[in-house]
């Protein structure tokens, strides 16, 4: 996703190696994706659903189709 838009940055974080960070974000299951420190998307899912949940979560306008 970060490749597609310069405004997007993506971190992969090894939760077990940063326990304080995992605590702060209340990581109880993986994968957990946190967008802009507020939107949480848990588990794996199809790409388009994932992107839709992220964009809606951060309040980005999404083109309907």
């Amino acid at each position, binding site marked *: 996703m970060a490749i597609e838009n310069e405004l997007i940055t993506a971190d992969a974080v090894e939760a077990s190696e940063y326990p304080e960070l995992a605590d702060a974000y209340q*990581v109880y299951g993986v994968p957990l994706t946190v967008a802009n420190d507020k939107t949480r998307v848990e588990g794996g899912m199809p790409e388009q659903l994932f992107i839709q949940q992220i964009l809606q979560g951060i309040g980005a306008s999404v083109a309907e189709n």
Partner: protein
Amino acid sequence: MALLREADRENLRKELAQLQTPVRLVFFTQALDCEYCGLTKQVLEEIVGLSDKVQLKEYNFAIDKDAVAQYKIARVPAIAVTRVEAPKLLVTGNEQPRERDFGIRYYGVPAGFEFAALIGDILDVSAGESGLAEQSKTALKQLRDPLHLQVFTTPT
């Protein structure tokens, strides 16, 4: 002792042989208080050893403050995966390659599933191609505000 098994090393060598545009693994480490820095470095050195298109650049998180700020590194061990692009126009013949940073970072040892993800990112960054569906690309390109994703995983 090598971390990768010989068979895995051979498969990886073949996979990385596809690379055309070089990729730089910008690695942030520190000497003290970093349990996983040494292992991370070992993993990266093994990857870099398998392809002349993968470069390793190391910075010290405690000392190299300019690089930490430039790459916006939050903690160690950290890896930024960047693309080393040839200059668009050659005028003097002395133009240096340009580093393109897509904002992709790994925090922690890239092991297990994360190792495969890192290799996938190296291939994607080199190609400048996310591999996402066209519909996804269109949706993402419309984004006008910064989006910072943090994907938490565990080694499996």
